[in-house]
């Protein structure tokens, strides 16, 4: 079993990744970047392969994703996301551009119409790495049928109707399993009661 708390090996490693990313952001630290690359590039490539990209494509996009992380490191906010989550969103967006050939509509918190977050309950909220570590642990305790639809959602690039057909269950069941999974995971994070 993976241990959720920072202070364990996984937690230390995750915090180390955040520190490396902050070093890249602060002074373009190439040694830190190389360490991030060694850890994340093979996982990004695996993610893209899992979604059906050919080996060469996945290789190229994984390298692009790391370059993009270099360029955007200043935008990384460790309060909001873990290094792994942030890199996942970069890889996801690159895949949409390059493989789906669609644009990913980008959020802009500086927009005049943006409705800001309510006053932060800063102290109660978990930091990015803590939340990710807890989520990884919580995923292990989800019922198998929920884990299956969650994984298909992230790795199969299919609408819910096709996921339903593949599993031979009604679409409403796919949606309710996702709802239950999200609810359970967010309860574990203390995001909802």
């Amino acid at each position: 079993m993976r241990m959720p708390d920072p202070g364990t090996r996984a937690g230390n490693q995750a915090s180390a990744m955040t520190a490396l990313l902050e070093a890249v952001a602060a002074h373009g630290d190439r040694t830190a970047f190389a360490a991030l690359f060694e850890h994340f590039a093979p996982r990004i490539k695996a993610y893209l392969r899992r979604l059906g990209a050919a080996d060469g494509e996945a290789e190229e996009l994984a390298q692009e994703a790391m370059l993009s992380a270099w360029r955007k490191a200043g935008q990384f906010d460790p309060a909001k996301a873990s290094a792994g989550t942030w890199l996942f969103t970069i890889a996801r967006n690159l895949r949409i551009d390059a493989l789906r050939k669609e644009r990913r509509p980008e959020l802009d918190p500086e927009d005049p119409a943006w409705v800001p977050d309510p006053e932060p309950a800063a102290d109660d909220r978990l930091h990015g790495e803590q939340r990710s570590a807890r989520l990884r642990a919580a995923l292990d305790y989800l019922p198998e049928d929920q884990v299956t639809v969650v994984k298909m959602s992230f790795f199969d690039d299919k609408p819910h109707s096709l996921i339903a057909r593949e599993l031979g269950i009604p679409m409403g069941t796919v949606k309710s399993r996702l709802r239950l999974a999200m609810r359970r995971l967010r309860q574990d994070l203390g995001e909802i009661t």
Partner: protein
Amino acid sequence: MTASRHPSDALLMAYAAGSLGEPTALLVATHLALCPRCRSAVADAEAVGGALMEDLAPAALNDGALESVLARLDSGVEPPATAPATAPAPRGDARLIPQPLRGYLPTPVEELPWRPLGPGIHAVKLLTGRGGDIARLYRIGAGRAVPRHGHRGNEMTLVLTGAYRDDLGRVGRGDVAEVDDAVTHQPVAEPTEDCICLVVTDAPLRLTGAARLMQPFMRT
């Protein structure tokens, strides 16, 4: 001003996974600009994606991959990390139409090539996704009614200005209403203000009764 009707958790997760077509992703993203609650849910779903990616068996990169990326950093083509570029000057409709939607409008909202669909009702097509789903803006004049219609697939609506009511209740700014092929409804704009909404359909609308006459227009 906070939305009271939200996309389903399943839809937010599909958005976080990156599996939605661009028109639907645009609608969800525009709701997120108006809804801190769903932003928090999407952030958690993205953390699930990050955890799943982290747990995959790593796929080795080609020999020399790191060196070639470092060389690209050295070539000076890659600028170091900096703050994002500043946005263009806000337009007159900037408070009304949030990003990312505003970036999809070629002109301010009042100057769009609105096509009349019937008394008090206009629409303009914004975007067709690769899956055939379509995003349109609709403008329902204050107090006007859209003819009763059914749906051949899913229809998702995000209200941007004003509000409308239908058989299922009131839908106001920031709210998302999702109907499927089992639903027929007759949205009526509230009398005080035009109701502008972003509507994404994944199949052509099926109109009932006399409203069939309007069907050709609905395909614009």
